[in-house]
């Protein structure tokens, strides 16, 4: 249960890791290391050739993973092993096209059967292709975004269709580390909380322990992606590096 895992975590940090970097075996080990280091949940990113919501770091990570030969079948064969071996719930983040290409329902069922508990789709603001019904039907959480530009009316709609947690985007822009997080995010998180009992997690731009600390004073969880992947890509030992990054953010 994603919501439960976030609620019961003392310090809910949700790391994002691009799958297949440097290879899929490493991804499996990174996931285990992150879970051991206390991740509340783990977001596994499916690399995509045209990641329009991502900044330079995650673009590069996507590109390198595809260059290294990432395939969906490879990922699917690793997932059951990974999910069985860790305590943190696993979430998959993917742009819509790879899901559509393989068939929406088939892909989601396959993910669920591999132990994936939730999905995040950054380019699906309108619930097309009946994905909402499919997710409810097969029992996988559909985590949805509330952006800084989201109107109140739309916020109600998004929150009512959301499960697992609500993803509150901290900034207008793409993913990537920022030196400061706009203070308005606090009010937005409170607004979302007044509409739902689901946990509300914040993400985009987070890189320091101080930022995590600050965001957790009003949000239920924090997602950290680019910061982690930048360190993973720079390190000769990505597994140990991941553990270290998370340990620091948890401190």
């Amino acid at each position, binding site marked *: 249960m994603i919501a439960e895992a976030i609620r019961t975590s003392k310090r809910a940090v949700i790391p994002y890791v691009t799958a297949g970097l440097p290879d899929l075996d490493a991804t499996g080990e990174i996931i285990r290391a992150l879970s051991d280091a206390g991740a509340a949940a783990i977001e596994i990113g499916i690399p995509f050739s045209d990641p329009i919501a991502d900044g330079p770091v995650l673009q590069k990570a996507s590109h390198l993973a595809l260059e290294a030969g990432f395939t*969906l079948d490879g990922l699917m064969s690793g997932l059951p092993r990974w999910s069985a071996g860790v305590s943190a719930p696993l979430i998959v983040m993917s742009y819509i096209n790879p899901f*559509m*290409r393989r068939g929406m329902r088939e892909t989601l069922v396959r993910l669920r059967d591999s132990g994936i508990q939730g999905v995040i789709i950054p*380019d699906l603001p309108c619930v097309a292709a009946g994905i909402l019904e499919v997710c409810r039907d097969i029992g996988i959480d559909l985590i*949805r*975004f509330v952006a800084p*530009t989201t109107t109140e009316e*739309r916020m109600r709609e998004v929150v009512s269709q959301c499960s697992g947690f609500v993803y509150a985007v901290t900034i*207008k*822009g793409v993913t990537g580390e920022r030196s400061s997080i706009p203070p308005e995010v606090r009010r937005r998180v409170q607004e979302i909380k007044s509409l739902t009992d689901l946990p509300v997690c914040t993400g985009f731009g987070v890189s320091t322990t101080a930022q995590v600390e600050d965001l957790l004073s009003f949000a239920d969880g924090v997602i950290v992606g680019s910061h982690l992947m930048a360190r993973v890509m720079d390190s000769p030992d990505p597994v140990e590096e991941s553990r270290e990054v998370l340990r620091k953010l948890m401190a």
Partner: protein
Amino acid sequence: MKGYFGEFGGQYVPETLLPALQELENEFSAAWNDREFRDEFSSCLRDYVGRPSPLTHARRLSEHLGIEVWLKREDLNHTGSHKINNAIGQILLARRMGKQRIIAETGAGQHGVATATACALFGLPCAVYMGTRDIERQHMNVERMRLLGAEVVPVSSGSATLKDATSEAIRDWVTNVDTTYYLLGSAVGPHPYPTLVREFQRIIGEEARMQILEKTDSLPRAVIACVGGGSNAIGIFSGFINDPVELIGVEAYGDANGSHGASIHFGSPGVLHGARSYLLQDLDGQVLDTHSIAAGLDYPGVGPEHSFLSATRRARYELVDDRQALEAFRLLNRLEGIAPALESAHAIGFLEQYAPGHEGATVLVNLSGRGDKDLHTVFQEEL
């Protein structure tokens, strides 16, 4: 469903952009129903762009092919292509919306030049995203944009062409959505762009229909246009959509060896840049690299309305490769004294395939742009 052409189209964008798309849709529909806006658009097209563009009977080409070829001369517009129609329309819209900064993507550089021109005309700052590969092969347009006061932002990610320039423009828009207007150049992208671009390009088809009726007293047998994203094609098609006229889009078959930009011919439905449409992709849904000698056709997607017109068989989509386009380029120079853009040369190139079996038929070709920008590429190919 709203924002769809059959099963194609939609709004597959980050949540942050959704209100901006709604605002754009509202403003466009208000503007398009506003007499004053329409009058201003028309007078800009007349007095600045130089419309109506002529319809030329290609006499010697007609003799050569055995069919009657008429050319809609979008190459004679100010800035040298049809792109200016849409750039003027959208800049008027941006001004109406109070936006202070304009961004655009460009492939061949024609849309970039048109946008930079419109921005100079209305005194707005402009950033144009362009792939580094396209910057190399369309250097003259890069210099032109800079001369017009635009900032050309090189994009080296991915294949470093139009696809990646478009992704980068979208990323800029997400970041600066409050102040910035994204002036998209083709009939692609999330709703309402494909509709909005078509409406601003509709003038091509409306004029051409009147002109050909006036000159030949009848409708043409076929209307032919090149298709990358598909804005010039949708513009001319829209004038004839309810007529008993064949609509033919010509896709880039590239080196004819598997490297091409023919999304409708060889692609399958998928999502790129905010819309579901035919897409060149692998079995995992990763977007494939493309190739065409014409930078403006070097794109793995296509406007959703073209996918719809293809699926419903209202239009058909044919192939012309690099070599055939180059031949057509030379042929039109020799026989008509017109240097077409390499994009438009694909539409001309298709006539060789169309002529056999259609002897004497009247065809209308959209000559969407002029070829000065391509001389360098053509000379290199001759070496």
